[in-house]
């Protein structure tokens, strides 16, 4: 019942054939490596938080040393424009070790990590050798790093502020999954890997290990992941250009859509109940209800894409497909398992939890993107892709609970889709 990761060879050829639209022009000097096989030992999972305690203590001690070294490193980079090799090695190891510890704590990896940050852990960080950095950027680095650190804090609990909701919820769900199944789902694992990878990039940038800004584009982070084909898919045809004037007034411009969406939601809830009853009896949703609810899901996605700057143009009020550049494709009514339908709302609770935290990410990303778009007239690609992921997950969650599909939303943040033969088996709830 569990999909294994598709064979790596297959993924790599696909990636070579079709470099995703979000493939960065240059690879990031701080890269995430995932060699994890999803298996978890139930015993260590059960006691995971306790088992991680020595690492957390050691990490605090290492943290003092690292931030002291970072200060020296900062002086060195401001003066010479380059990180001395010693600092690069030490701080790089600190970034790696932090990633290992949190990967272990949050169940994104299985084995007990070593205490030295040596490369080779199943969830690892690969670093390029030191490169020249702009001294001006180094001078005000902590200031420049604030948006990245805030986004990292909302994603992962590593910085200790804002709670790191996304990964905490993912770890909470992974804990139960691993205890029951002895493994975690690829969706949860990759969601956590993504959050940890982004945090590592944000740390490496703040500590001046690299001069490259963190890239929040999930496809660039998770180069080897692809998701099974889902009946609810997000497509975006967006050139990142943003109109400064509508960006400035984006929130009030969305007000009429809030009003309309609220009214539409009220009707959609009733329609969802009707659709639920139909699916219970017929084993599939009724075509008119399906069409209506699909339009509702699309419309809601258009509105949040507009509000959160993932899309540029003002959306229409009808949820018509193929008009908005950030669009949701929804397959027609298919058979749905009656048992899954019966307990639909209960089953949707984990997805609601994940989506709740992802919407915080969406809002924070939009907050920073708002300034960027206002100044440059462009949406940063990474933030756009991160936002698109959150919107896609939201659309899949809604589609699930309004009984448009019985396929669970998948938490895997990538837009790459597996070939049919690789995704032949049913996807697990993620």
């Amino acid at each position, binding site marked *: 019942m569990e999909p294994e990761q598709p064979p790596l060879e297959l993924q790599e050829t696909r990636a070579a054939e079709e470099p995703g639209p979000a493939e960065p022009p240059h690879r990031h000097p701080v890269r995430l490596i995932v060699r994890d096989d999803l298996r978890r030992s139930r015993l260590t999972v059960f006691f995971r938080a306790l088992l991680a305690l020595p690492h957390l203590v050691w990490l605090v001690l290492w943290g003092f040393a690292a931030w002291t070294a970072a200060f020296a490193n900062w002086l060195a980079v401001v003066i010479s424009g380059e990180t001395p090799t010693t600092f690069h090695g030490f701080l790089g190891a600190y970034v790696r070790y932090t990633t290992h510890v949190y990967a272990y704590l949050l169940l994104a990896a299985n084995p007990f990590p070593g205490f030295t940050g040596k490369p080779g852990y199943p969830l690892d960080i690969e670093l390029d050798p030191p490169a020249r950095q702009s001294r001006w950027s180094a001078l005000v680095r902590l200031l420049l790093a604030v948006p990245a650190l805030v986004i990292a804090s909302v994603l992962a609990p590593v910085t200790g502020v804002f709670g790191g909701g996304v990964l905490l919820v993912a770890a909470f769900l992974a804990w139960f999954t691993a205890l029951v199944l002895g493994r975690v789902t690829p969706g949860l694992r990759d969601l956590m890997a993504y959050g940890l990878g982004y945090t590592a990039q944000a740390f490496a940038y703040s500590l001046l290990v690299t001069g490259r800004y963190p890239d929040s584009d999930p496809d660039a982070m998770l180069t080897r992941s692809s998701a099974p084909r889902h009946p609810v898919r997000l497509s975006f045809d967006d050139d990142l250009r943003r*109109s400064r*004037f509508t960006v*400035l007034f984006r*929130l009030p*411009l969305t*007000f009429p859509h809030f009003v309309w969406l609220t009214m539409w939601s009220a009707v959609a809830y009733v329609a969802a109940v009707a659709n639920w009853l139909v699916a219970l009896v017929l084993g599939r949703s009724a075509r008119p209800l399906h069409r209506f609810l699909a339009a509702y899901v699309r419309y809601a996605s258009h509105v949040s894409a507009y509000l959160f700057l993932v899309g540029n*143009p*003002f*959306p229409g*009020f009808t949820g018509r497909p193929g008009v908005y550049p950030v669009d949701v494709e929804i397959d027609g009514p298919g058979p749905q398992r009656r048992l899954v339908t019966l307990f639909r709302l209960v089953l949707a609770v984990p997805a609601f939890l994940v989506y709740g935290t992802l919407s915080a990410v969406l809002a924070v990303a939009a907050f920073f993107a708002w300034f960027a778009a206002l100044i440059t007239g462009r949406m940063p690609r990474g933030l756009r892709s991160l936002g698109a992921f959150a919107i896609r997950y939201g659309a899949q969650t809604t589609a699930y609970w309004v009984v448009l599909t019985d396929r669970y939303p998948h938490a895997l943040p990538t837009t790459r889709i597996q070939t049919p033969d690789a995704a032949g088996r049913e996807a697990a709830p993620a």
Partner: protein
Amino acid sequence: MPGDLELRNLRLRDYFSPRQLDRSEDYERFFRIEFVVSQVALVVALALYAWRGARFARESAAGRIGTGMLLGMLGLAVGWLSQLPFRVVEVWWQRRYDILDTGYVDALVDNWLVLGAEFLSICLALLIVMGFAGLFPRNWWLPAAPVFVAIGALLAFTLPYLGDTERLEDSALRANARQLARELDVEGIPVDVEEVSDETNAPNAYAYGLGPSRRIVLWDTLLEYPDDEVLVVVAHEFAHQSRDHIWKSLGWYALFAFPGTYLIARFTRRRGGMAEPAAVPLSLLVVVMLSLAALPFENAISRHMEREADWVALDATEDPEAAQRLFRRFTRDALAQPDPPEWSSALLDSHPTIEERIAMAIAWQDRRRGP
């Protein structure tokens, strides 16, 4: 109000200290200039928007009406931006004269929320206009105008239920107010208090609602005045209700709505008519020009009703002394200039001048004493 009423010329120095006269004159002169400049800025901004604004249609993925809504909201945003510096200057000026207590940030945030409400209103208005214009490209205004009037009536009816006010608590004042209501045939209309003292020191009151939602509202800043003066205000507001001024205002609104919407339809024809989103930017300019043109008429109508309310209040309270003291306070506390330039009161003032209001109280006294 008797038609043959003749008001005496007052010697203002008998009523106000030279300092009060100077201060209110300085205070209000600024607003007159500011008003003219801000309206020029608004018209210029909207003229530019009418000229180039239709380009923003490419920022829309919505249909005909949705795109029109976007253009309408952006037009309001342009207008809002053009007025922003004036809002800041107004706050500065009012704070300088201790009329306003709010900070700049608060004032701008409030302003921003108001903008949100305006965005929603213009979307509704454009939905009506562009919806009808899709069906009747030339004559949409015929069905649209009654809908606007109906919405106006609906708003007039519901606003009191949405307002953030509380019942008047002072029992002595309430008993006297009930007495006045009985005299003016508006028994059962409640007296509410609105808390504004955190933001402003200026006194004010208003009457609103239709039928069962009718009520009058006093700002809590007014309650610091002696009871007999507050009762003059209460009587004035009750007079608005007993003389059906809200219905009459709606009637006037209806009278303006038909020619107004017709003119909008007429002027936007060369942009393809109101069925086209491209006509929306121009229509905003037309609306602003028309309301500026209508302002003197509106104010003349309003002043007429205010005079009537003052006179009815004098009849009801039979206390011209209190009325005079009250009006003098408006100059002292709210810095209302007693004798603004004639062009200004004719074009811009919705109420009679303080000088006129005091003179009316005296005229009432004279009549009572007999010739």
